[in-house]
């Protein structure tokens, strides 16, 4: 019978905390980056111009239909050769995960916008609003409310996806866990602690999203 001993982890607390800090900041950065990419792609999808629609759709499908781990590695090893630019592991990770998230955000944002009754933009037009003003003042504020739960669900996935950056030696929670496991010869305790840390953050968040979903169904 294996003798569990979590007390040895105490020595590695700062390493874990550093890793957690990197994971959380990475998540926030790729959520922000992903939302920018997603909004741009969604507006492209809704454009009057066929070329813009095609480019957006192509972008979205490429990132939805390839594994995110492959995208990460591709951005780090292949893109620098193609574009002739140096990529640090952090830049490559930010780029890949923002584009990956953006591809999914785009579909959510587009869906939220088209779910608003056509009568709303007609009324706005009839009052003399330009399409841009109507989008900003009438359509987006209503659409955003409907988008919040699915955007949060997607962001939760993004939080988990950050664990992949450890393959590029970005010192996130998983990477630091690996270091601690090698050093302590206690992989069972270390990886259990890593899993528990993810769970402790994500479980309350999923409960919150579920509560928001139920509340928005009621109104």
């Amino acid at each position, binding site marked *: 019978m294996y003798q569990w001993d979590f007390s040895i982890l105490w020595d590695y607390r700062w390493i874990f905390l550093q890793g957690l800090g990197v994971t959380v900041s990475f998540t926030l950065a790729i959520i922000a980056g992903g939302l920018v990419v997603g909004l741009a792609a969604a507006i492209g999808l809704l454009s009057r111009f066929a070329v813009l629609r095609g480019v957006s759709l192509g972008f979205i499908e490429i990132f939805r239909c390839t594994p995110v781990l492959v995208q990460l590695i591709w951005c780090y090893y292949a893109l620098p050769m193609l574009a002739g630019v140096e990529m640090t592991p952090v830049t490559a990770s930010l780029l890949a995960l923002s584009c990956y998230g953006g591809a999914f955000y785009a579909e959510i944002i587009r869906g939220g916008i088209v779910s608003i009754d056509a009568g709303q933009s007609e009324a706005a037009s009839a*009052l*003399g609003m330009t399409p841009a003003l109507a989008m900003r003042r009438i359509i987006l504020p209503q659409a955003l409310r409907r988008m919040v739960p699915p955007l949060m669900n997607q962001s939760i996935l993004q939080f988990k996806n950050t664990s992949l950056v450890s393959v590029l030696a970005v010192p996130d929670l998983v990477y630091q866990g690996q270091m601690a496991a090698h050093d302590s010869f206690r992989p069972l305790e270390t990886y259990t602690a890593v899993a528990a840390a993810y769970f402790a953050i994500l479980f309350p968040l999923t409960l919150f999203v579920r509560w928001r979903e139920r509340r928005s169904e009621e109104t």
Partner: protein
Amino acid sequence: MTTSQTAMIDITGLRKSFGPLEVLKDINLQVKAGGVVALLGPSGSGKSTLLRCMNLLVVPDAGRIRVGDTTFQFGASTERPGTKPLAAFRSRTGMVFQNFNLFPHMTVLENVIEAPIHVRRLDRKTAIDLGMSQLEKVGLADRASQRPQTLSGGQKQRVAIARALAMEPSVMLFDEATSALDPELVGEVLQTMQQLAADGMTMVIVTHEIAFARDVADRVVFMRDGYVVEEGPAGEVINTPRMEATKTFLSHFHKGAI
């Protein structure tokens, strides 16, 4: 040409197709300043499309539209107007929809002052004064801070009228403004429209309320299959229609005593 000089709305040679479907076929129509025109006709005859062409919510394929002193010419050789001139044109015509289309994320007053502030660029205080006076006109000043969802259908439609009036438009267009209402709520909206007509507003009204058309409109235009079939003084067209199509259409209503 005296009619077209005093006309507030002047439409000549208007055509519109949706794909292969020709919905408006050479429409000519004038509405004099302060005039009230009722647009009648069976469902699918093109009434809504014609009304939407009057504020360019639908852009025609051919023809000429003048409202006030702004003229737009349409045709294969003329360029489609840009979003800015279109928006400016629409800001001077008010439109009321069957389904109200109030903005649910705003209060009643915010609905009314939204376009005055962001389109006419009035300062907030002026817009609120204007908005409150329009809400008073439709009898809903005491509902200013409520959400539209808390109002009855009749109240919603009166807010929609106040919202359109707050742009101080030169014409008001009504597309079946009472068709979505419970019967007991129709009266309050018709009364508001009647008051507006009495105040001298130029109005085009698509309606199935034949009695209202006869009593409030001064002219009736009867449409079928994308054509204006018959046009004339309201009492005359409704009481003694000349065309077979008009007679057939009106007979459906006379059966159910109006």
